[in-house]
């Protein structure tokens, strides 16, 4: 019995588990560990029109049950991603979700237009929420009207469905979600990192050269769950959930909250085998909990019995 297959706009997934953008590069490193075709999908590192070096180092700092990063969207640029990374990935039977970033609307549009035509790119993830770049990002991710406008433009340019990645650093996440849904988003991915900082006990200065960074890992899971719970009730497009997922139990919790698939970020750094491990454990856990299929978990935290795909006795 396949308890894990899921269909989402543009995506036919063997299972709903994928590495989160920026936590898996373009897959090459992790292909040393296991067959990438095991994965539901791969969210590749953000791509911008031009190559970017990103921020100075140190770029990571550990915090309690989490980590801060300020990579700054380092990537080889659109041309190399199209010419090198995506063709390399096409040897695997796994849909790619391409994370699209930029500073100006036209950058986003240019990347979206080109990258969405790559044969193995089945969807875009519009990154309007990177906390580590000084220009562009912030307004796109925090002002509903601006986010909506950008979504519309990218949607027009894209040959595949567009998922918009929401920032948790906002007063009203529901408002942002509705705005991008209005803008034509086919789905949402959430959450990106919370802005945080750590200071060095000896020098008093920030550990990250960029000073602030994005907080990820188990520490932020309760915030992610809350936001997905709120947003999934307010929109009618699916959500790919992320933020601190480490285990099959966590995956179920995200589905209960309202996610229809999930991505695993920081946990890859701790255990490079975390994604295949979860994919293996999930059916066992589902069975133990009495579910025939993972979709039965979706939205269980707020759905009335009648709305549920399946009722347990």
């Amino acid at each position, binding site marked *: 019995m396949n308890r894990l297959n899921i269909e989402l706009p543009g995506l036919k997934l063997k299972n709903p588990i994928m590495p989160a953008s920026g936590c898996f*590069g373009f897959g090459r490193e*992790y292909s*040393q560990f296991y067959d990438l075709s095991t994965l539901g999908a791969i969210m590749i590192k953000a791509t911008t029109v031009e190559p970017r070096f990103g921020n100075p180092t140190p*770029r*990571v700092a550990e915090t309690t*049950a989490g980590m801060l990063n300020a*990579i700054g969207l380092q990537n*080889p640029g659109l041309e190399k991603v199209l010419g090198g990374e995506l063709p390399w990935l096409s040897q695997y039977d796994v849909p790619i979700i391409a994370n699209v970033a930029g500073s100006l609307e036209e950058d986003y549009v240019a990347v979206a237009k080109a990258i969405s035509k790559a044969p193995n790119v089945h969807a875009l993830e519009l990154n309007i929420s990177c906390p580590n770049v000084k220009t562009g990002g912030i307004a796109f991710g925090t002002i509903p009207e601006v986010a909506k406008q950008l979504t519309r433009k990218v949607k027009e340019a894209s040959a595949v469905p567009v998922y918009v990645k929401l920032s948790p650093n906002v007063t009203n996440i529901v408002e942002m979600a509705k705005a991008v849904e209005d803008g034509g988003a086919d789905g949402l991915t959430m959450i990106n990192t919370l802005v945080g900082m750590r200071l060095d006990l000896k020098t008093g200065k920030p550990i990250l050269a960029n000073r602030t960074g994005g907080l990820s890992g188990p520490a932020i899971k309760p915030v992610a769950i809350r936001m997905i719970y709120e947003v999934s009730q307010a929109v009618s497009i699916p959500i790919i959930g992320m933020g601190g997922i480490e285990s099959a139990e966590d995956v179920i919790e995200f589905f209960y909250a309202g996610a229809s698939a999930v991505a695993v970020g920081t946990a890859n*750094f701790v255990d*490079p085998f975390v994604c295949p491990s979860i994919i293996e454990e999930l059916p066992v856990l589902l069975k133990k909990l009495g579910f025939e299929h993972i979709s039965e978990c979706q939205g269980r935290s707020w759905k009335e019995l009648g709305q549920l795909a399946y009722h347990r006795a």
Partner: protein
Amino acid sequence: MIQKELCKIISQREIAADIYELTVKAKLVNEITEPGQFVHIRVSKRDPLLRRPISISSYDKKSEQFTMIYRKEGKGTSLLAELTEGMELDILGPLGNGFPVDEVTKGETALLVGGGIGVPPLYELSNQLTANGVKVIQVLGFQTESAVFYEQEFLQNGETFVATVDGSYGSKGYVTDVMKDLHFDCIYTCGPTPMLRAIEQIFSDKKVFLSLEERMGCGVGCFACVCKSADDPTGVSYKKVCSDGPVFRVGEVLI
């Protein structure tokens, strides 16, 4: 191939003030290709969250064991220091490249320069060079007498100078003070960045291999640990310390 393995601890002992020598049984030694590679250790289920990079200071493929030497520093290494014989440790490795042993050949002289916890990866290198018939001279810098370790071990391979910053043992001062009067064909060095920078400046005309440290995330590919290629200082070319390094040829990257 990089392995993730639960390794049994064979022994752990404090060999100098807050300096520990830890030996584990691990199949992954069979994957080691060069001295100077490192491993990524998970010291706890949850706190600290991230792994800790520690160099392989020596290994033996026959007995499938390798040894690390580390300084008890913050949370991670303090937890590591509590472990004892028989316990298991989650280790990812071997990671990175190592020191290119073939860059000096029989009859030539290699200068190995280590500062503090930069000393450990040089030990396996010293052993392998010596086995190859290379003459090794070793300069080891420490803060103070109580922090000195492995002097005897290095002495068995060749001339060994120890310098301490406070002069409490060996000569007073920095390794670079000692290095000036020595003759050699190649330098291999590992230690704090200021030391590496000084060596790079003084010996830029020599063949020098530097082992760098950078804060790491994954140890394989998250872009946490990059440095700029020296030939493109304002551009986008980069090297990853965890996989392209930690060892670089002088002038290869900006440090």
